[in-house]
């Protein structure tokens, strides 16, 4: 059981770049770990630190308190590239609970939904308004599938099954285990 995900309000962090790939979110050289936890310190590592490991003062992620900024607003086609689930693990461990973009890559979306990190794809006009006010509060409401900020309300869609799992705090492996009779019947029929 995970904690149920219903709605929350937090400040945003804005990374306007398009096509932020999972190698940016967590570089491959850190993937030799065999653990899921503790990857937040590596999130956007090469954006946050220089070659000597010093903070990059220009990177907005170094200028925020992660627990107060749980909504990452990012440019189009977020999460493209490698299928590494380490990417949502790192973002969730860093403190994010939602990623808002105008387009989010398929595998990243599937991975994020299994880790309490909500992928929120909204229309371009709403995204522009949201990105124009970095650091302000927004509310991500999974019950109503709405993102609210200022006077704006942007609708988003989430796969109904994934939404149910998040709202109830259940994960999908348990549900899939419940289909074993059907899986065995399929194997008997076809294989």
């Amino acid at each position, binding site marked *: 059981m995970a904690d149920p995900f219903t709605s929350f309000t937090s400040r945003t962090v804005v990374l306007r*770049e398009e096509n932020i790939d999972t190698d940016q979110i967590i570089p491959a050289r850190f993937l030799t770990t065999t653990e899921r936890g503790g990857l937040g310190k590596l999130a956007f590592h090469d954006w946050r630190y220089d070659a000597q490991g010093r903070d990059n003062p220009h990177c907005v992620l170094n200028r925020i308190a992660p627990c107060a900024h749980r909504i990452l607003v990012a440019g189009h086609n977020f999460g493209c590239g490698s299928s*590494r689930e380490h990417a949502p693990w790192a973002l969730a461990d860093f403190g994010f609970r939602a990623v808002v973009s105008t387009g989010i890559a398929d595998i990243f979306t599937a991975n994020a939904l299994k880790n309490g990190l909500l992928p929120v794809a909204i229309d371009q006009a709403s995204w522009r308004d949201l990105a124009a006010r970095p650091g302000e509060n927004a509310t991500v409401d999974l019950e109503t599938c709405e993102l609210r900020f200022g006077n704006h309300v942007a609708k988003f869609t989430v796969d109904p099954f994934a939404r149910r799992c998040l709202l109830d705090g259940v994960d999908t492996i348990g549900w899939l285990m419940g289909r074993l009779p059907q*899986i065995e019947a399929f194997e008997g029929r076809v294989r």
Partner: protein
Amino acid sequence: MPSPQPRTLFEKVWDAHLVEPEAQDRPAVLYVDLHLIHEVTSPQAFQVLKERGLKVRRPGRTFATLDHSTPTNNERSYVSEEAESQVRKLEENCREHGIALEGWDSDNRGVVHVMAPELGLTLPGSVVVCGDSHTATHGAFGALAFGIGTSEVGHVLATQCLLQRRPKTLRVTVDGKLQPGVGAKDLALAIIAALGTGGGTGSVVEYTGEAIHALDMEGRMTVCNMSIELGARAGMIAPDATTIAWLKGRKHAPKDFDAAAARWTALASDDGAQFDREIHIHADMIEPMATWGTTPDTGIAIGTNVPGENKRALDYMGMEAGQRIEDAAVDVVFIGSCTNGRLSDLRTAAAVLRGRKVSARVRALIVPGSEAVKRAAEAEGLHEIFLAAGAEWRQPGCSMCIAMNGDIVAPGQLAVSTSNRNFEGRQGPGARTVLASPATAAASALEGHIADPRPYLEAAHG
């Protein structure tokens, strides 16, 4: 029962693997025939099984190899203790759960997407998954093959199934013929440049047309491999005589081969089958390609100028808007990976390098995709051509494509790479990556700048 509706290749494979179709409130339960695992994306999945007291339900349907974190030096010295312990972890997990591993002692070990087809594990009409986005490679055989995350690796281990929504379909028809000296990699880069890195999101691509069916299996694998660089879930090519001839006699090919081959031929999309989207590409127009930016859709023809649309990417790459792409000086050349680490790729590189010397400013690494590729290349003496040219001939692995085993490009250096991704830092922090074909990479190694391979290939082929 035959369906009255004409169906696409994808739909035939999808329908045949539905344990339960999707409904509004739940995804389909899709059966997985072949599950491939490697050391990087599997340990946390085995950990979940352990935490829940679950077993691997069908260990005979999962195959493992070592490729990502593994050293490619002859001494087999790891980049870190953590990399070595990750490999040990996979060995342990495979032993504990009865999973076949093509490990260090195996003659079959290789990059997962090179090895599985070689062994005949990848079959037309099957569903193939792996915790690796380049799993789309296997679609070259008419399999539905796609990358999954580690949670889903756990799902497959525990149930042999995945929860999936049915993707959309996109048909890419490549008409005409590729010019001499232009290969599958150039075609893949041209398709990605036409559609953009997000152009295939939510879709399974079927590649078809004269130029696709003229490709050999290795070329088809190169094209399908890069489907993820369009954002596509998978890429597929209908099985034909080329596919069947390639599979015949492979270790895991079906015993009743002729009957299986007849079923495979029937997988082709029916006349009148509907795709959600269609595009056409003209093969004759494609020239040798090289990328200038930090996304795989930035391929341009060699001989043209770098566009000025993305300052961040230009600055990162050390390129200037309007410069000739050939004027970019090259420090490293990498020939290998699941995109271009097969025997035909190495033969092409050898044709360019034969009797010539790699530029003094270039470090050239040639990394076979598998032990089998390495053996075959050495049997033909290709390694001697590479070594005589001044290139390194290394052990099989992912190597400098993902740069997590210590094979890295130094900050600010520019690599011409036959791999699949040119993202910032992909080949090492601050490394600059230009994606190109094996022929272009080899020609660039000789000249020390990005170079058109055609003069060398023409000379080689008389």
